[in-house]
């Protein structure tokens, strides 16, 4: 798999201490300055604690309740609900949205993920629908620009081989892209070198580069 976009400068996200997120009222607050650079950063929290709200806030879709943050790079927010018209196929989506020079790579990843790109979106299974948005985002990275992708629960519905293929892709391109991924891991050994945690209305950074999901899950309230 090739690296799709070599950025001149690395992407960065800086969450300042005191940044508050929520819909009008405060849902959670950042308790320490959190600087993030290229690589994959997992966002872990139990349901309703503000994972999606945090992603939407730092991708510019929601106003913060308090404090501030900075992002350097071209953002993509791939929401949990992202879907396309029932009658359009993944192939047509890729043709419409992925630059021609990267389309071949996108189709290769689709093949690896066992996604039937000719099938209508409405006829795809839930997991396969998720793959369409995921592949689209991965190959819409901009050349010569820092890139940031915010994934909201991208693994929901994906089988283990597909998750592994996606994680492999992320590993191969981690020098070029900053990814923040909210998820509910389902196996304890899943490595999480960098993680943001939301618990007790607090957002903080966890991990020392060697931790796994098993180390984090007890810390989530």
């Amino acid at each position, binding site marked *: 798999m090739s690296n799709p976009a070599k950025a001149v400068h690395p992407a960065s996200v800086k969450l300042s201490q005191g940044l508050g997120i929520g819909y009008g009222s405060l849902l959670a607050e950042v308790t320490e300055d959190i600087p993030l650079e290229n690589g994959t950063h997992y966002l872990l929290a139990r349901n309703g604690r503000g994972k999606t709200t945090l992603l939407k806030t730092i991708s510019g*879709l929601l106003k913060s309740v308090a404090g501030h943050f900075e992002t350097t790079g071209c953002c993509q*927010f791939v*929401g949990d609900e992202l879907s396309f018209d029932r009658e*359009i196929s993944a192939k047509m*989506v890729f043709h419409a949205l992925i630059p021609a020079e990267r389309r071949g790579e996108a189709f290769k990843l689709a093949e690896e993920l066992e996604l039937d790109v000719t099938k209508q979106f409405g006829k795809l299974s839930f997991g396969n629908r998720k793959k369409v948005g995921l592949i689209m985002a991965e190959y819409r990275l901009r050349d010569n620009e820092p890139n940031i992708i915010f994934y909201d629960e991208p693994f929901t519905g994906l089988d283990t081989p597909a998750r592994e293929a996606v994680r492999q892709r992320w590993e191969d391109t981690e020098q070029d892209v900053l990814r923040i991924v909210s998820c509910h891991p389902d196996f304890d050994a899943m490595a999480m070198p960098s993680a943001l945690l939301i618990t007790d209305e607090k957002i903080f950074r966890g991990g020392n580069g060697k931790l796994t999901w098993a180390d984090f899950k007890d810390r989530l309230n």
Partner: protein
Amino acid sequence: MDLFRLTLSTLIARKMWVVVLLAAIFTPIVFPYFTPHETATKLLEPARAQTAWTVTWIIGILWTLSQAARFGDSNSRTGIGAYFRSQGCGPIRQIFGMWSAIMLFLLPVVAIAIGMCVLFAMPSDATEASMWVNTNLQFAALFLLTIGPLALLGIGVASRFGALIGYVLPTALCVYGLYGVGYLGMTIKLPGHNPVLEWVYALSPQYHLANLTPRLIFKMGHLEMGAFLGIVGYFTALTLVIGSFATLMFRTDPLRN
């Protein structure tokens, strides 16, 4: 541009455009034969022109406006609007991206209507023929000035309130402007009418001005340039009002999000 391409691809994938184009081509050819044309051969050509433009109106109202509402609704509901906004594509670019793609599919329908009138219903007299072409071009301009802003309104309203309201509101406005306003105009001419109705009439969209079908049927010739520009000016002002309202209504995310 990305949303424009995605909308175009979606419209192609939905395949309804095939039915629409076939209807635009074949109804003006076939339907006029239901008139008593054997006994009155002169009926055939005006009937063709009438059918061609009536079908264009029907396509505009039934297809274009429904597609507009559907895209407005799905853009906010499915996360596509949020995705593009996170990429820096703001609401104005999004609404016009979808609108341009929808209108691009309407252009061939209008071109077919003009083509049908010019190829199969053109008067043989040279002066009449020239007026006939002008009338059709004026009709096309006014038709697009009517349906275009209403499609924009459909996208804007549907993105906030859903596809049903996004379709019903511009459609009702269009049908009212085409036919209802005429009845209201007759009512306010009666003695003892309610003065409120005069205000309602004055504020109503006068879309019947865009329907030049009677001019084609009765070969009344094209609108004088002054009158035509006056109507264009009126519709441009209406476009600004409706367009502003539509863009203000437009949301890239569903309500409460």
